[in-house]
């Protein structure tokens, strides 16, 4: 849509940002038409935003299952080449538990870590819409609005206490 513009409003604190999001909603924007970036984890509930979907726990579970299966394979590797030791069974019971535990945890933790990368599309070094001020504790709200209503939106943001409202430009981070 050629006639929309992407705006970025920077707020000094939580209250004005939450206020601004309410205003954007009443101006007719849907939640998925705006985005918030912040320097500390601001929960969705604080800003009155819907909960974010995250795949991390599911990926973690998948990784744990994968790790367990790798462990299971390792437990049964002695069957590929019989070597009796110390009068113990070829597949020792308690040591197998140790093996399964470690590999399950390894799978769980690696997939949790990679889950963050997948879900957040890390690493991405393309230019992105950003304001460095957010790492100083500011909260920034992005939204798309029709080009001809730009003034109204800007005014609404300033009324809520935005420090600056400007056109969001993708920049190299």
């Amino acid at each position, binding site marked *: 849509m050629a006639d929309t513009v992407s705006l970025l409003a920077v707020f000094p604190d939580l209250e004005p940002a939450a206020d601004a999001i309410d205003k954007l909603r009443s101006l007719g924007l849907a939640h998925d038409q705006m985005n918030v970036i912040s320097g500390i984890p601001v929960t969705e509930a604080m800003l009155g935003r819907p909960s*974010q979907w995250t795949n991390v726990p599911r990926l973690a579970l998948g990784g744990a299952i994968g790790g367990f299966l790798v462990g299971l394979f390792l437990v049964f590797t002695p069957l590929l080449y019989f070597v009796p030791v110390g009068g113990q069974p070829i597949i020792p019971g308690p040591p197998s538990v140790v093996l399964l535990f470690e590999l399950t945890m390894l799978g769980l933790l690696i997939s949790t870590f990679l889950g963050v990368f997948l879900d957040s599309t890390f690493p991405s070094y393309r230019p992105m819409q950003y304001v460095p001020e957010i790492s100083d504790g500011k909260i920034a709200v992005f939204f798309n609005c029709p080009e001809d209503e730009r003034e109204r939106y800007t005014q609404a943001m300033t009324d809520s206490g935005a420090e600056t409202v400007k056109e969001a430009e993708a920049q190299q*981070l």
Partner: protein
Amino acid sequence: MASTTMPMEHAHSEEAHLREQHLMLDPRPRGEMNAMIMEAMHYTTWKFWVVAAILGAIVLVGLFGSWGYMIAEGLGVAGVNRPVFWGIFLVNTVFWIGISHAGTFISAILRVFKSEFRRPFTRAAELMTTFGLVQAGFSIFMHMGRVWLSYWLFPYPNQRQLWPNFHSPLSWDLLAITTYLLASTMYLFLPLIPDLAMARDRTAGGWRKNFYKVLALGFRGTEGEWTHLRNAMNIFAFAIIPVMFSVHTIVSWDFAVATRPGWNSTIFGPYFVIGALHSGMGAVIMVLAVVRATMKNMKYFIRPEHFDAIGKLMLIISMGWAYFFFNDYMVQWYGGDKWTEALLHWHEAGPMGWMWFLMLIVNVAIPWLVLWNKRWRSNPWIVFVVGLLINVGMYLERYIIIPISLTINRMPFTWRMYEPGIEIPLSIGTLAFFILLYMIASKLIPLVPVWEVQEGQMAHSMKKFGRETVVTVSELE
């Protein structure tokens, strides 16, 4: 006579006092804290370079030089012999794995229990875990007779058609330590991403800009990114605790499953875990005291309250260590096995008996005598000395368990003492390498998780209960 209304001035001074005491009640603008951390990273005196150069020389000669010589000559240049087949290399391994436990303990267990005092120093502790494990890995590989074949220990399909022997505790060790090293590195990295993004935004150019840009992965702080990060950190905090316990338990099994007097003890698992925490906490407090004294702006972030809180933990852990030590000793003593009896006698009355008594003094007596006092344990230098002594004591404990206990076995004809040789420069080399890595890291990555500190400061406030002003915390997560 007594006035019923509290003078305003008094109330103010009370608040000021609380503010001075608690970092969480003494908030500063985020931008200012960022600037302080950036300055701490950039501000480097000539002393830093001198120390780093000396440590670098020790690492080159003591660690890599001596190790290369030992690989070329064989383990004969070390002090190991029969019956002391395991010497200081394994003492170092157990020691460094022990050091690595405090990072996870502080960061994961205190995060799970929402202990707020952890916030400014979780990263400082986690760094110890990663770098401690690096030294432990070095020590294990040094110990091997044919280190150039050490890849045979890893499970991978190979031409020999052989997989590792999973009956062996060393195979479990390898898996557990690898898991722990990877897990603790990832756990260090996740909460670091927002701070790297902060450093990226505040670096104008040069190699540092590229360094932070690459490592920050393009983090912006969107709601989604924070949600994924929080979820992942939560999973890590819970899951890494059993991994941490398993690592040191498995290390203890290297000894406990052996058919040797003194080693074959069912309590070795928890005894080693608490011993690891004992030395690890001592090391954390030492690192914090040094970081606070030498790095710029750290006196704001690390305060006596933190030494007080860790000091309390050290006291509890010292009691726990004494409990497990006595439990192990009691059962071994009561058993009446003649070899175990000979071993206990050798520990206490042998030529190295002073180690046994010194271990008890510095691991138990000194922490108990010093750390009960809030004023003493709030003093960074007093707890630094206590931490140092505990680490000496825990090193002695491992020394007694490994080379001294190996002297005594069921074949008295082979009993022989152990005298360390090239182990000494190699041990100093690993210590120097640990400190050097830490020093380099302290100049490259923000040592205080600023966003976590700010989050904590938002959650804390003062509240009046009657006449008293108290600290309250709201749960933000």
